[in-house]
Structures are given as C-alpha cells and as structure tokens.
C-alpha cells in the first residue's frame, strides 16, 4: 500500500507523524492559523442563485492541499450548495446561476472555456446517501476509468482503488458476482469512495458521507478519510460537530441569516474554531444553542 511520505506539513497542529495521527483529545494544540500559501482550491466571491432565490453570498474560502476541511453549520445554510459548486454539480439543476470564481490549479473552473465534465473528473464526490450503480462491484469501480478511456490494467486499478477504500478484503471474492447494491450501507459508501478514487482525482468532496451510517461504519469512514488525506485534498460537509472535531484540520462555519443567504461566518483551524471561536454565532452553534 502507500508508504507514509513525510508530509510537508504546514505548521499547524503539532500532531507530529506518530500515529494515530489526529487524536486531539488532551493534546494542547497550538491553535495558530497560518495563511494557506498554496491552496488546492480557492473560492472567490462565490454567489449562487436557485432561480430567484439566492443561496450563497460572496463566499471566500481557501482550501489547503492534502488536508481535511470541514463545512459545518445549521441545515439549509448552503453547505451542500457550496460543496457542489466546487465540482460544478449545481449547474445540472435547472435555473441555477453562479457568480464568482473557484480557482483550482490556477484555473477558474467557472471560466466559459472550461469543460465541466473535465472538472468533475479531477474532483471526485461522495454523496450523503450511498449511491452505487446497480452494477457489479467491479463495474462500479471501473465505471469512471471506462468513461475516461483508461488504458492501464483495469483489474489492477479496481484492486488498488478498493484497497485504498479499505474494502478489498471484504469484497475480493465476489467482485464480479455481487451487485454494489447487495453490500451493507457502510460498504456501499466505501465502494462509492473507491469509485471516486479510481478516476484518480486530486480532490474528494464528501457531503455528509456518514449521515446514513451506524457508528461503527462511521468510524471506518472517518479513519479512511484521515488515511486518504495523505494524498488527497478532502472537503467534507458534516452536521456532526464531533466528526468535524475528530477529522478536520480546518473548519468553516456557515450560516444563513434572515435573508436565507448562506454566508461564511468563520474559518480557521478546527481547534481554534472549537476552543476559541471569534464570532459569537460560531460559539452559539458549537455549544449547541441553535441549529
């Protein structure tokens, strides 16, 4: 599998390279937010309308490479909308209009000349409810590679992706026999992760990937996320603040005001957001006073 490369760590948490890597409990983390020098994704003044209804108000957000960034906030504040803006999924919904920029690798993916299909190939996505295709496990993983005209060995790719998603041992005997839908919920979600990994994306977006799973399956996905963050930039939406606290390096708190337009309230290192929020609304939310 993958050897642990010495992460070029931005000087954030002194979690060191000892494992388990991100047990925060009891570690007095020096919550010093450093500016993100080379963000994997930079959202600039992003606004979005569903028909006449505005859902996002001028969001600015830099997302660090090979880290986990979580988006939290009460239901309806625009977390999913923001996440789906990063791989241009929103435009599949009729009458959606987007303004602003999302810079990935120095390119604004909303530039007219950019093909959204290509954008989505390098930015994978995992959904709230596991949505494997009604095909075999093998075909689920091979799907992205097939449509991309992948030239290498499909068997190897499938195995590698399933191993990365920590699912290989459970399914290796019925790859071509069993439908993806025959798996348990947690396995289905890991299959969806494997499927996303098979297109070798740089970024993986996850929209409440554990909300339909039991605590044990959730634990496995969280471990997997931490593992994957060595190689991939991960952005996760979660309504579970413990989850954000457990896995995320940085956390963004969003809130929709009286006008129902979702805005970014506060963004920083997860420790700082959870231990010393600067905004009173953030504090109210994380202490459970609303939402």
């Amino acid at each position: 599998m993958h050897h642990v490369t010495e992460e070029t760590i931005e000087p954030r948490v002194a979690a060191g390279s000892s494992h388990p890597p991100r047990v925060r409990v009891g570690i007095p983390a020096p919550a010093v937010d450093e500016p993100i020098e080379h963000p994997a994704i930079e959202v600039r003044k992003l606004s979005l309308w569903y028909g006449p209804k505005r859902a996002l108000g001028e969001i600015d957000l830099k997302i660090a490479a090979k880290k986990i960034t979580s988006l939290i906030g009460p239901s309806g504040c625009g977390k999913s909308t923001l996440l789906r803006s990063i791989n241009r999924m929103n435009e599949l919904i009729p009458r959606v209009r987007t303004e602003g920029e999302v810079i990935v690798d120095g390119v604004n993916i909303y530039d007219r000349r950019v093909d959204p299909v290509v954008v989505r190939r390098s930015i994978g996505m995992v959904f709230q409810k596991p949505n494997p295709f009604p095909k075999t496990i093998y075909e689920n993983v091979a799907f992205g590679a097939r449509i991309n005209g992948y030239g290498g060995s499909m068997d190897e790719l499938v195995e590698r992706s399933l191993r990365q998603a920590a699912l290989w041992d459970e399914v290796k005997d019925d790859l071509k026999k069993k439908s993806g839908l025959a798996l348990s919920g947690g396995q289905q979600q890991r299959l969806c992760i494997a499927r996303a990994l098979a297109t070798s994306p740089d970024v993986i977006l996850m929209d409440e990937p554990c909300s339909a799973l039991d605590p044990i399956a959730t634990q496995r996905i969280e471990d997997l996320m931490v593992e994957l963050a060595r190689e991939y930039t991960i952005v996760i939406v979660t309504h579970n603040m413990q989850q954000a606290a457990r896995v995320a390096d940085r956390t963004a708190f969003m809130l929709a005001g009286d006008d129902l337009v979702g805005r970014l309230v506060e963004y920083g290192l997860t420790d700082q957001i959870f231990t010393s929020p600067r905004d009173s609304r953030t504090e109210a939310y994380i202490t459970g006073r609303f939402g």
Partner: protein
Amino acid sequence: MQQAPTAGELPKLLRRDRMRDLRERAIGAALLTAAAVGALTTAGIILSLAGETIRFFGQVPIVDFFTETEWTPLFSIQKFGVWPLVSATVLTSAIALLLAVPVGLIAAIYLSEFATLHVRSLFKPMLEVLAGVPTVVYGFFALTVITPFLQGFVPGLSTFNALSAGFVMGVMIIPLVASLSEDALSAVPVSLREGAYAMGATRFEVATRVVFPAAISGVIASIILALSRAVGETMIVAIAAGMNPILSFDPRVPIETMTAYIVQISLGDTPYGSLSYLTIFAVGSTLFFMTFLMNVLSFWVVRRFREVYD
C-alpha cells in the same frame, strides 16, 4: 386489589361501535362483488373459449392444426393448418417492432434525459394523443396513404400487404414504447445520475451507461407489452394487410393474420355452430395463448432484471 370491570361498566369511549363494524363489513362485501364481476367475466371468456376450442379439436385433429401449412376452412377441401395465420401475425408484428422499438426508445431517452422540462411537457401529451387515435383510422391511413406512397419505390407491392400494415402498426405502438420506457427511465433515482455526473460522465454516458441499464427491466416490459398490442391488433391488419391466408414471409403480398381471420368469419355468413365457425375459437385460443405467454415472459423479465435502487 382491584377487579376488572364487567362489560356493563366499560367506559363508552372504549366500547365497540357495532354500527361501524357492520358498515365496514358491508363496504368490504361491495368491493368483493365488484372484483368478482371482473374475475368472473374473465373466467367466463376463458371457459367458453376453451369449450368451443375443445369441440373444434373433436372434429379436427390437433396435430393437423399445428402441422399442416394450408388454411382453407371455407373451401370445399378444408385444410386447418394454422401456420399461415400465425406467420402473418408474426410478420406484421415484427415489422411493427422493427420500427417502434428504436424510435420509441430514442424518443424515451431523449424525453427523460435530454429534453428540457418545457419540451417534455409538450411532448408527453402529444404521445398520449397519438396513442388514443382509433385503430380504424390507422388502418385506412395504411391502405390509402402509406401503401400508395410505398408503391412508389417498393416494386411489386400489392394493395394489401404486410409492410404498410406493419409499418402503421409500428407507428401506433411507438407512443406505448416511448411512454412506458420514459416512465421506467424517469424512475431511475436522481442520485444515480448525480453519481455518474460527479465522475465526469457526459450526459450521453449517463443516459446510456447508467440510466438505461438501470431501467432495462421496465424497458423490456414496455417492448413486450407493445408486442402483445401488435399481435392482438385487428383493425389495421384487417383493413390493410389483406385476407389471404398463405404461409409467406414476403412483406409485399396480401396475407391474413389471426385477428383478421376472426373478423372475417365473425362478420361473414358462416353458419353459426358449423366447423368453419368453430375455427375462430381455435384461432382465438392460439392468440390468447401467445399473448398470455408474452405476459408471463414480461412478468418474468421484470422480476429477473429488476434493480433494487434504494
């Protein structure tokens, strides 16, 4: 220690409402009667069909019926080989499917995956109107428009032929294929489409590699249903395909389908109860059996290939 109250002391609220019990039983009985009427009618049809068919086979060996290749019940030398009628039905239905399946499926995929909401809301009612045109109109359309038109470039096309009848029958069942397949495609959850889009699939790839395979059982069921419509279709073939029972797969010549034959005898002056008259029950049973098999097949297909999306 407390004693359980006897019925007399039961609070009013807890007591059974006798009137309501009675009312519900009456409603149940009424519903059962309604259901029974439908079931009994079907049973009656099957029984009378079976009875007359058995009488027919009392006079004509069933082996002859299925091995002879000539059908001449109205001639002085009577032959009762059903194949000329079956072949005509198969030929016209095959021509119909050849047109209706590709056109219907393309229309369904277009409507469910590519059309804007506006276009779809315009097209769906149009399809339904097309499905509501009386078949006698299609029959005359085949005879008076399509056949003369086709005669322009199909050499040797007779006035009555399987080609025009099959073609128009195909037009007739396009809406059926399109509409039912579209329902099956639309029923594929949005989450599957999103999953595919998120991996960089194009609209075409999503439609052909995810949505269509996921809906395949519904699509096949729609085709089988259309086929049984075509097999049972009567007016179009009676008007445009001819009344000439010959065993031929040449689409240019007059033939006679099973349904057209039944019409011919029913409307003609064949004496009631005669052997010639009994033929229509034998042919009717054969037709019934064919459509029945198709329905069973469709049921099996739907079960076999059904994708549990959830």
